C-alpha cells in the first residue's frame, strides 16, 4: 500500500481522463467521464454490469477510441487509436476472457507480441528467456517456463498474463475481474502479488464485483453508474455498504426469505455416493421440492463435475442418483431435460447462450416442442414464442429493446437473466444453477436470487453451486460443502454462515468425515 499523503502530493497523475464520452449506436455508454489514476496505486473500478467500466478500459486500450474527451498520460495528451499504441505507451490489459494460447508453453505465451529478433530476423529466445525468468522470480511462479499453459490452474494462468505485461515493461496493468474464477485462497495470493507490484512502482487498475476485496485492496476507487462516474474515492477507506449504495444508487436491503419457516416438500433428488472416477470421489446430497440447496467449496473441488454427471453432460461411474424415488443415469442432457431437469451452466457465454441469436431464440430453445402447431404439423408458432419469451423476460426484468435483440448485445447480468428465463417456461422439477451470479452486478444479483427463490416457492427443487459464500448464505436452505471431490459437511438454516462455510471448505475430509 502506498502512503496516501505522499502520493497525493504527486501533482501529475499517471492517467487523466477528461470528459471522455463514447456511444454505441443509440446507446450512450460513457458520458463525460473525468478522473485520475495516480501512479503507484491500485485503482478500483466498480459498478453494475453495463455501467461503463469495461467501455472505459476499452477506450484506454485503443479497442474503441472515445468519441470525445481527452486522455493524458504523465500530463501529456495522447491519442490511442489502436491496441498497439496502448502497448507502446506502457499500458497492459488483462481481460475477463483469458488471452493465452492453449498448447503453447509459458515462455512463448509470455513472449507474445515481443519483437525481440536476431539480425537474421529470427526470434531471439535467449534474452527473452532471461527476462522471463526474472519476471517469474518476481511473481513467484511455482511452475517451469516450459509448462503448457493448459496444464496450469486458473490462478497460475493469471500469473502468466501478469508476467506477459511485465515482460512488456508495462507501467499500468488493467485487470478485468481477475478474481472472478479464483478461490478465496488463490485470490489472496493474487492480492499479495498486486501489492508487491504496486510497491515496486507499477500501477494497477482493478475491476471487480467482489466489493470486499476492492475496499481491502484498492487505494482509490471510482464508481460507475449508467455511464457516469458517481463517486470518486481517493486514498480513503470506504465501507462496503457505502460502495453498494453508490453502485446501485439507493440503499439495498438484504431480503430475508425466512428460511426457518420453509415448508419442505417431498424428496425430489437424491445423490448417493456418486463418483466419476476423476474429480468427483464420493458425493451424497438430497434436494427436496421447494428447497434451495447449495453446494459450496473451493474451485476445483468437483462441484461442477458432479452436477454435470447428474445432468448427463458427463457420466458418473460409482454411486446412484434417484429422481422421484427412481434411479436415473442420464446419458445425454436431453434425457435430463425430458425428465424434468434444467441447468444454467457456469460458463454463460461458452455454454449457456447463443450470443448471435435473439433473446427469444435463447429462451425458447429448451421448450420448442410446446410451440408447434401439433405433433403432425411440427411448425413453430413464432409470434407465440416471442410473447412467451417476452413474458418470462419480464419476470426476470431483462433490460433490452425487445426479445428480438441479440443476446450478445446484453450486459453480463442481463445475459444471465436470459439464461435463467429459459427455464421459467414450463419450469423443470429440478433446476441446477452453476455460479448464478458470477460477473453479475449487485442489483441484478439480488433480482437473480429473487427469481431462484420464487421458483423454489413454486415447488421446484433447486441446486445452486457457488464459490461465493455470501451468496450461499443469502440464498440457500441447506448447503453441502465439497472438498476434493467429497461432500465434507452439511449446514442447514441458521448454521449457514460465511465462517462455517469457509471453515468447511478448507477442512480436510479425513478429519471430519461425516459431519452432519
Amino acid at each position: 500500500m502506498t502512503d496516501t499523503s505522499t502520493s497525493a502530493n504527486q501533482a501529475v497523475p499517471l492517467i487523466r481522463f477528461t470528459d471522455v464520452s463514447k456511444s454505441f449506436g443509440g446507446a450512450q455508454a460513457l458520458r463525460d467521464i473525468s478522473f485520475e489514476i495516480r501512479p503507484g496505486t491500485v485503482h478500483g473500478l466498480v459498478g453494475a454490469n453495463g455501467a461503463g467500466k469495461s467501455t472505459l478500459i476499452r477506450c484506454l486500450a485503443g479497442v474503441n477510441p472515445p468519441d470525445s474527451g481527452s486522455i493524458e498520460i504523465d500530463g501529456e495528451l495522447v491519442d490511442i487509436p489502436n491496441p498497439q499504441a496502448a502497448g507502446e505507451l506502457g499500458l497492459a490489459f488483462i481481460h475477463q476472457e483469458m488471452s493465452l494460447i492453449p498448447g503453447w508453453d509459458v515462455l512463448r505465451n509470455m513472449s507474445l507480441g515481443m519483437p525481440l529478433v536476431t539480425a537474421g530476423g529470427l526470434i531471439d529466445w535467449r534474452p527473452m528467456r532471461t527476462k522471463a525468468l526474472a519476471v517469474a522470480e518476481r511473481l513467484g511462479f511455482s511452475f517451469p517456463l516450459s509448462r503448457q499453459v493448459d496444464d496450469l490452474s486458473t490462478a497460475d494462468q493469471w500469473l502468466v498474463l501478469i508476467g506477459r505485461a511485465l515482460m512488456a515493461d508495462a507501467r499500468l496493468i488493467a485487470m478485468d475481474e481477475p478474481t472472478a474464477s479464483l478461490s478465496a485462497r488463490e485470490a489472496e495470493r493474487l492480492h499479495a502479488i498486486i501489492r508487491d507490484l504496486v510497491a515496486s512502482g507499477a500501477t494497477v487498475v482493478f475491476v471487480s464485483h467482489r466489493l470486499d476485496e476492492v475496499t481491502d485492496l484498492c487505494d482509490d476507487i471510482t464508481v460507475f453508474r449508467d455511464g457516469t462516474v458517481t463517486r470518486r474515492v481517493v486514498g480513503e477507506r470506504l465501507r462496503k455498504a457505502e460502495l453498494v449504495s453508490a453502485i446501485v444508487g439507493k440503499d439495498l436491503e438484504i431480503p430475508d426469505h425466512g428460511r426457518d419457516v420453509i415448508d419442505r416438500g417431498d424428496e425430489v433428488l437424491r445423490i448417493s455416493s456418486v463418483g466419476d472416477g476423476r474429480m468427483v470421489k464420493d458425493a451424497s446430497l438430497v434436494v427436496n421440492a421447494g428447497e434451495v440447496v447449495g453446494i459450496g467449496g473451493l474451485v476445483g473441488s468437483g462441484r461442477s463435475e458432479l452436477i454435470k454427471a447428474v445432468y448427463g453432460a458427463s457420466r458418473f461411474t460409482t454411486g446412484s442418483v434417484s429422481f422421484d424415488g427412481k434411479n436415473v443415469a442420464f446419458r445425454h442432457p436431453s434425457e435430463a431435460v425430458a425428465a424434468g431437469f434444467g441447468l444454467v451452466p457456469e460458463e454463460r457465454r461458452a455454454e449457456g447462450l447463443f450470443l448471435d441469436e435473439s433473446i427469444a431464440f435463447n429462451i425458447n430453445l429448451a421448450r420448442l416442442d410446446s410451440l408447434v402447431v401439433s405433433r403432425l404439423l411440427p411448425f413453430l408458432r413464432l409470434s407465440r414464442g416471442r410473447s412467451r419469451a417476452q413474458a418470462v423476460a419480464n419476470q426476470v426484468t431483462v433490460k433490452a429493446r425487445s426479445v428480438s435483440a441479440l443476446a450478445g448485445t446484453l450486459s453480463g447480468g442481463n445475459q444471465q437473466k436470459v439464461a435463467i428465463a429459459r427455464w421459467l417456461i414450463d419450469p423443470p422439477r429440478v433446476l441446477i444453477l452453476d455460479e448464478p451470479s458470477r460477473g453479475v452486478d449487485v442489483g441484478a444479483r439480488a433480482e437473480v436470487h429473487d427469481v431462484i427463490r420464487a421458483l423454489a416457492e413454486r415447488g421446484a427443487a433447486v441446486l445452486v453451486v457457488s464459490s461465493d459464500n455470501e451468496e450461499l448464505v443469502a440464498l440457500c436452505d441447506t448447503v453441502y460443502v465439497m472438498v476434493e471431490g467429497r461432500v465434507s459437511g452439511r449446514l442447514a438454516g441458521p448454521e449457514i454462515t460465511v465462517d462455517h462455510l469457509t471453515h468447511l471448505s478448507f477442512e480436510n475430509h479425513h478429519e471430519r468425515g461425516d459431519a452432519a
Partner: protein
Amino acid sequence: MSLTESASPTEVDGAPAARRQRTALLIISKYGTLIAMVILIVIFAIASPGGSFLQPLNLLAILSQSALTAIIACGVTLVLVAGEFDLSIGYTASLAGVLVTGLMSNQGVPIPLAILITVVAGSVIGLVNGLLVAKAGVNAVVATLGVGTAVVGVSFGYSSGQPIVSLPAAFTAIALGRSVLGVPNLIWLMVIVLVILWVLLNRTPLGFRIQATGANRHAAALAGVRTDRAKIAAFVIAGVCAAIAGILLSSQLGSGMVSSGDGYLLDALAAVFLGSATLRDGKFHILGTLIGVLIVNIGFNGLGLVGTPTFFQFVFKGGILVFAVALATIARRYARS
C-alpha cells in the same frame, strides 16, 4: 420497468453525419449483394444486344440454369448452419445420376421406384457422413472427402465408367418439360424444394435445433438439444438434395455419367458463402444461398450475351464471391466500431 427503450432521448447531439455513414455501411453489409445483383441486371439490360437479357425466355433460362445448383446449395446450407461442412455433395449428385439411369435402363426398374431408390441412396450417403462426423467425431472435411471419394468409386463400379443412355421419354420430360403455365418444371421443382427447406430451417423445431447446434454446440447440448442428431439430419438432407439434383441433371442430359455432377460442389459452396454475405450478418441461410446462385448465373448469362470470352466468366464468378464477402465483412466491421 423492463424491456424498455434503452436509447436515451438526448443522444441526438452525436454527429448525424457519423450516423448516416453507419447506416450506409449497414445497408452495404446486408444488401450489398442484392444491390450488386440489381446493378448487374441493369447493366446487362442495357448492354445486351436488343435488350435480349430481359426477354422473358432468357429470364426463365437463367432460373432453369440456377435450379440444380440452388437445390444442392440449399441442401448443403443446412450442413453449414449446423456448423459442419460437406465435400461429398457433388459426387453424390453424380452417383444419383448414374444410379437412377442405370436402374431404369439396366435393371428395368419403373421411373418412380428408381427415383425413390436413388433418393434413399442419397440419404444413406448423408447418414454415413453424419454418423462419421457426429458420432465418431471425424473432422467433417476429412469424413466427407473420404465418403465422397468412395462414392466416386461406387459410381464407376455400378456403371463400368460408361455413360448410361437410352432413357424413357417420360424420364427426360421431368427436367425438360413445362407442365404448368409454360414455366419449366425445373423452376417449379426448385421452388418446391427451397420452400420446404426454408420452412424446415426457420419454422420447425428441427431447424431451430440445427441453428442452435451451429451457433454454440455446448450451449445447445446443455439446453437439451441432441446436437448429434441435428448434425446427422442436416447431412441427410444435404444428401437427399444432392440426389434430387443428380436425378434432375441426368433427366436434363438424357444420360447418366460418372462425373456429371462433380462440378456442383464448388458452385454450391460458392453460392452458400456468397449468400452468407446477404441480408443476415454473415450467417448461412436459404434465401441468401438462392441469391448467391442467381447472381452467379445472371453474371454468366449476361456476360455470355454481351459476348465476353468464357475465361472472363470464370474470373467474374471467383471475383464476385471474394469481392462480395469481403465487402460485406468490411462494411460490417466498420459499422460496428
